[in-house]
């Protein structure tokens, strides 16, 4: 099995992307709440939160892909063990 769990201890630059869902869903929520635009007749605050779900999935997926790329600063990734 490809068990790439060695990296559990190190945070890398692209992990900062994981702040985005919190910014989208929470930090921007008070601002979004004042927007009275109704796309497809739906409350914008709700559409925003739903879009946040898609954004989150996309971001976690991106981070996952970046995590699997070999790290430039380390030579052979040490998941060669049986």
């Amino acid at each position, binding site marked *: *099995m*490809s*068990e*790439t*769990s060695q990296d*559990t201890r190190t945070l890398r630059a692209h*992990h900062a992307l*994981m702040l985005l*869902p*919190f910014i989208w*869903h*929470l*930090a921007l*929520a*008070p601002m979004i*709440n*004042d927007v*009275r635009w*109704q796309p*497809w*007749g*739906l*409350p*914008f*605050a*709700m559409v925003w*939160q*739903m879009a*946040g*779900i*898609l954004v*989150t*999935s996309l*971001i*976690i*997926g991106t*981070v*996952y892909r970046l*995590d699997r790329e070999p790290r430039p600063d380390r030579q052979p990734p040490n998941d060669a063990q049986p």
Partner: protein
Amino acid sequence: MTASPLLIAGSIVALTVIASLWYAARHRSAAGLNLDEWAVGGRRFGNWIFWFVNAGEIYTTFALLGITGYAWAFGAPAYIAFTSVSLACTLGYWLMPRIWHAGRSGGLLTQADYFVQRYQARWLGAVVGIAGIIALIMYVQIQLTALSLVFRLALGSALPAAWASSLAALLMLLFVYLAGLRSAAFAAGIKDVLMLVLVVILGGTVAAKVGADSMLDVFQRVQQLHPNIGHFPGLDAAAGLDTTWFVTAALNVALGTWIFPHMFQLCFAARDADTIRRNAIWQPLYSLSYFFIILLGFAALLAGTQPEGGNLNAVLLQFVADRYSPWLVGLLAGTVCLLALVPGSLLLLTAGSIFTRNVVAPLREVGERQAVWIARTAMIVFAACAVLLTLTSNESLVAVGLAAYGAIGMLAPGVFFGFLWPRTRAVAIATGMAAGYTALWWAPARQLLSTALPGWDSGLAAMLVNALVVAVITLAAPRRPAS
């Protein structure tokens, strides 16, 4: 409800239980049933089964009955459902593999085991175990409330509430005794499929039932009728559910999700850390289905649904009973039963194993047979406590849920600092917990805190107090304690 919905609901529950027991029996290891298999599924859960148990523990009656009721009564505050899974998964992508790793390398079975190992203190394990059990009982309360609502719908409101929730607890205990994590996982899969089917059928046909042209028209009409419904603070400004509440409560839910002992323990069941990470990518998408759930709440409002006694937890059941054909009422009743039974039994199972392993075992020698006996007796007591809570509280399922998150959040600093800050010690964690619970449950402290942080979710405010106390004590303590 007439005989036919009752029959449909009953067969759904019975068939699911039988099928899940059969599934677990087929997968039982040759060595027989051991604690590892019962509690953490032999640590072999791959992508699919992990997804379903995970979804099974996230999407409970809190989601279906709680959120429809919230949408019906308050409007926008129900959006909290959209944030809970995606933020929990973002955090979980980072946190869960760490929990998994600790569990695998230390052979851990419960969350309290982690505290014992990380902080080298069995007493802390016992304290954390009891705290976890209290939060679990509060969560069981949600499931019992929902189950007894279904019973009262099915058997008539002449059935006293005490009887309904005792019956619900009995059913839950029966399922726990028969099932382990693996059969619960299977039942969770069935109930998830049922819930999706149900939500799509109800959502797809709801417009016609309330005289709207389309799903979107339901939203338009309800906003014309109640111009404030779509944004915070929603329909009832006096309820204090503004954006400050939303942000702090959603953050508290995200921080607390994996701290619940059953969710923590679930991480141990994964086959590898990659399974967990992949799950975190896809799990949030599932929560888009809350669109239909909120739609149903709004539709019930348009339809003028009035649940008995204004009980907002009963809105969906009442609405469907009023407007839909009997077979759909049966499908809903059966699904709600499973939505309550499966997670509820897992909660009891977790509470029982923590009690045996982390509270009783450190005090006295416990043999294997005795352990089973203690766990089962404890589960009866916990279920009884949950029944009592159900009877004394009249709150919305969402409010009870947030209170449970508040309670479990007191263990969060111990977990997060545990992974991030090697210097933290058991005494600091325990003192932080004491301060946090005081801030959460002692009325004068709670009041003081709510004046200092107006509009905040009380759970997050108390967690902040807790974390600050831990940080101060850790910084003040000598770097290397004399050994």
